[in-house]
């Protein structure tokens, strides 16, 4: 069995751990010197030089007009656009994922009718460009609001007669969610298929109820494969929301575009403002992704990977130990 390794006499040179180096009197010549990587240092220097050059160029090139960038970066008009981007992204991400899970369940079900319906939906919405879906819905809603008719796309369009922004927002969210659901369905399905068949069998053999099997046994394991793929999808979505500009919803990109036509001299700093905000949003998502993935790796890996902070601390500890060892000699 694994628990009790045989006791080894402490004097053996190969048995003592590095920490007890001095006490055990281990011959110094026997110490294993870790492989050194001199070329890594050269490469690091090279990369640093290139980065410094790019940074220097960014700062000194007048073309970027950093004073105008500062002027625009936190302007209320830009922040309004940012809020719209966040709202559209959040709603579409949630609704799209919900739709995707339902579609994936339908596709994986035993009912041939559900399987076919799910397949057709995914086929259709992966075939039609998002911009076409959005414009189609936009014109549709305009038609229906003039006729003041009922709700063709579910309860989401109840806000019809409210302000025009709400309507545009709903059109944008519905359009993007419909599109997103098709892709999310495939991501979820891939995740479920990645779970070992033995897990399904074990859950079935224990007589666990269907819902429990899916939510507590299959899904937590599927999420290990789903999270990276869906975050990929989500990051595409954050940037993809800039298409709502074409259904007259002014998100971050839309605001930047309007400001550009009003202040033609500020095109470049305004584009930089949009770029930096999108970078910030995707960075936040990437950081969250790391921790979510770490959570779902419980049990799959024998030890969970360290967080960047833990790795930094560990690295410093090793360095300090090495310096102490070198100076002691």
């Amino acid at each position, binding site marked *: 069995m694994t628990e009790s390794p045989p006791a080894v006499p402490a004097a053996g040179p190969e048995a003592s751990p590095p920490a007890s180096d001095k006490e055990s009197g281990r011959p110094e010549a026997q110490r294993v010197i870790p492989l050194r990587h001199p070329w890594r240092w050269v490469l690091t220097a090279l990369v640093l030089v290139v980065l410094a050059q790019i940074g220097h160029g960014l700062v000194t090139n007048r073309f970027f007009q950093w004073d105008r960038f500062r002027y625009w970066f936190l302007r209320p008009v830009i922040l309004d656009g940012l809020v719209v981007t966040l709202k559209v992204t959040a709603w579409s991400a949630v609704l799209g994922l919900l739709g995707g899970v339902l579609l994936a369940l339908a596709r994986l079900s035993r009912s041939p009718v559900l399987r076919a319906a799910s397949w057709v939906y995914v086929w259709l919405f992966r075939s039609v460009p998002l911009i076409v879906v959005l414009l189609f819905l936009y014109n549709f809603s305009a038609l229906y609001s003039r006729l003041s008719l009922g709700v063709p796309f579910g309860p989401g369009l109840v806000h019809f007669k409210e302000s025009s922004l709400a309507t545009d927002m709903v059109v944008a969210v519905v359009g993007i969610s419909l599109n997103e659901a098709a892709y999310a369905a495939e991501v979820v399905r891939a995740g479920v298929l990645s779970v070992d068949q033995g897990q399904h069998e074990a859950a079935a053999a*224990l007589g666990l109820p269907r819902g429990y099997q899916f939510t507590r046994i299959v899904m937590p394991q599927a999420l290990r494969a789903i999270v990276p793929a869906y975050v990929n999808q989500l990051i595409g979505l954050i940037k993809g929301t800039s298409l709502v500009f074409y259904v007259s919803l002014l998100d971050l990109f839309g605001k930047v575009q309007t400001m550009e036509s009003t202040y033609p001299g500020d095109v470049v700093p305004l584009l930089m403002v949009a770029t930096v905000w999108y970078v910030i949003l995707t960075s936040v998502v990437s950081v969250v992704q790391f921790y979510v993935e770490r959570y779902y790796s419980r*049990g799959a*890996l024998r030890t969970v990977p360290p967080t960047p902070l833990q790795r930094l601390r560990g690295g410093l500890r090793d360095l300090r130990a090495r310096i102490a060892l070198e100076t002691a000699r």
Partner: protein
Amino acid sequence: MSAATPARERAAAEVTVHNAHKWYGSHRVLNGIDLTVPAGQVTVILGPSGSGKSTLLRAVNHLEKLDVGHVSVGGEPIGVRHHRGRLKELGERAILAQRSRIGFVFQNFNLFPHLTVLENVAAAPVATRRATKAQARESALRLLGRVGLAGKADAYPRQLSGGQQQRVAIARALALEPGVILFDEPTSALDPELVGEVLAVIKDLAGGGTTLIVVTHEIAFAREVADTVVFLDGGRILEQGPPEQVLSRPREARTREFLSRVL
């Protein structure tokens, strides 16, 4: 580990197989099997690979559907019901309820890797509304003690050796207090030195008020523990009887040939 059985444990169930036939496409895996396993006894199923022994075992809890015939556990047909002289398949909910009264131990353990050892054992009684969380936890700890793993309750399955994982899987099956437990080659995926610890746990269950059906290649185990040995070949029962008869004085040449190869 004592063989004393708590009073609340479910009574052992008799398992009967009636004229079981099963095809995979044109290949016939089960070819008319009739078998009675008396309640509380240990039955070991032997046979060359491809003889249909795993399929037969999996048919008992309806992981495999039979094409003809049926299996009864404790007199209740599994996965089917009699309807105007014919057999009709049951709905999934009913089948799941039946399965929760039949334990199954897999060759590859199939523990849930994202749950701790304790959660693996305690999950099913809670999910099937047999016990509260506290009760399930308590009896899970007791069962882990019984398989000699009380100290591993908070470990994850992948942190355990194969033998330990299989013992957890046995505790998981016991948690539902089944009337019968099915073992599908429980030691075939283990390193030789770990086989003993798992067989010891199974042996400890024998005569403890649970019917055990074990598919295995461990002849010594069959000889020592089994009440009945069944030899399967080509989807048919070639011979069955007490171990000293089937293993020491087999009637059939096919059985003798098989035994000479595995011993």
